[in-house]
């Protein structure tokens, strides 16, 4: 897999909070999406025991040598509103604190203070 990354565009096209870390994470996501099919094909080849051992090892090597951005493990969910990487609600893509702020401001449809 010869990796030639598209450069990070100088013009940021992310709406919302932008940060170097956010940009980097977005980059990882784009790269992962781009190479996912290729990656899956290699993974298939590695796992298919009916293929000759040589091919499988080659596929393994290629996977190991590929850039880390083609792996999904490097992707980290970040808060869309503040760029924080901790305690993110997947439903809202928000940090716990941003979630609270927005919920109190009534910006999250259906979410309200609960007491039971």
């Amino acid at each position, binding site marked *: 897999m010869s990796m030639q990354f598209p450069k990070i565009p100088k013009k940021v096209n992310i709406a919302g909070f932008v940060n170097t870390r956010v940009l980097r994470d977005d980059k990882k996501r784009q790269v992962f999406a781009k190479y996912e099919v290729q990656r899956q094909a290699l993974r298939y080849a590695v796992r298919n025991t009916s293929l000759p051992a040589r091919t499988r090892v080659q596929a393994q090597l290629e996977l190991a040598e590929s850039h880390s951005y083609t792996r999904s493990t490097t992707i980290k969910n970040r808060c869309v509103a503040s760029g924080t990487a901790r305690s993110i609600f997947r439903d809202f893509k928000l940090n716990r604190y941003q979630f609270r702020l927005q919920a109190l401001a009534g910006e999250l449809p259906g979410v*309200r203070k609960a007491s039971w």
Partner: protein
Amino acid sequence: MFSYTSRSLFGVSKHLKVSVPFRALSTPSQPTPEQNNIPSQDPTETSTPPAPAHAASTSSAASTPADAAPAPAPVAPIEAEKYSAPGVKEWSERLGAFDEENRLPRSVQAIYLRPLRRKAEHGLPVCNLQLRSYSVRNVEFFADFAIRAAYYLNLPVSGPVPLPRITERWTVPRSNFVHKKSQENFERITLRRLIQIKDGNPRSVQAWLAFLRKHAFYGVGMKANVWEHDSLGMIAPFFCIASTIAILTSFP
């Protein structure tokens, strides 16, 4: 939470008293009791009424009992009138003959009554429509709308079935972790309604879905599962092709 403007049709009942100029279209007759009692005698009639959907005004003109056939006016089988409860009669008095000179067209009157329904002959489910919203009012209104629309498209409908609510709760520290002892709870309750279409023509089911999509209501999400049935000879090994056809609008 949400501001309710006067979208509800039930809020405008005062307008009933306005004299309606449709009078000229309909022949002079009493649209009330004897005529309305007829459909209760033959329930089979519901399967083949001439579609009263097309226009409010024109259909009322045709709906006169001038032709004294046993199957009466097309808009007649209003469900509320099938029952001879005293309250229902009040309704018919108020709506049908509150002023015999001036009355609303039948299809407009139907809005004030319970939605009309077709009878399912075979009861084969064809389409499941799930409505989701965070406010009761919106789902209820839209479910009612969908059922009425289905009636006019000749689709037998069952529902709306209130499915269990989805309650999601989150607990969040009010500020930094140091003050973990002070937390706040949030919740989101999703209300669901299931509307099932039974043995309808697939094309009219599609038309119905498209109509609902066109008139999508704010704050109401829709998801439809559509089943298509084929005869055994069509494709030998496949008896039934089930497909989730359309997620109409994104879920809330």
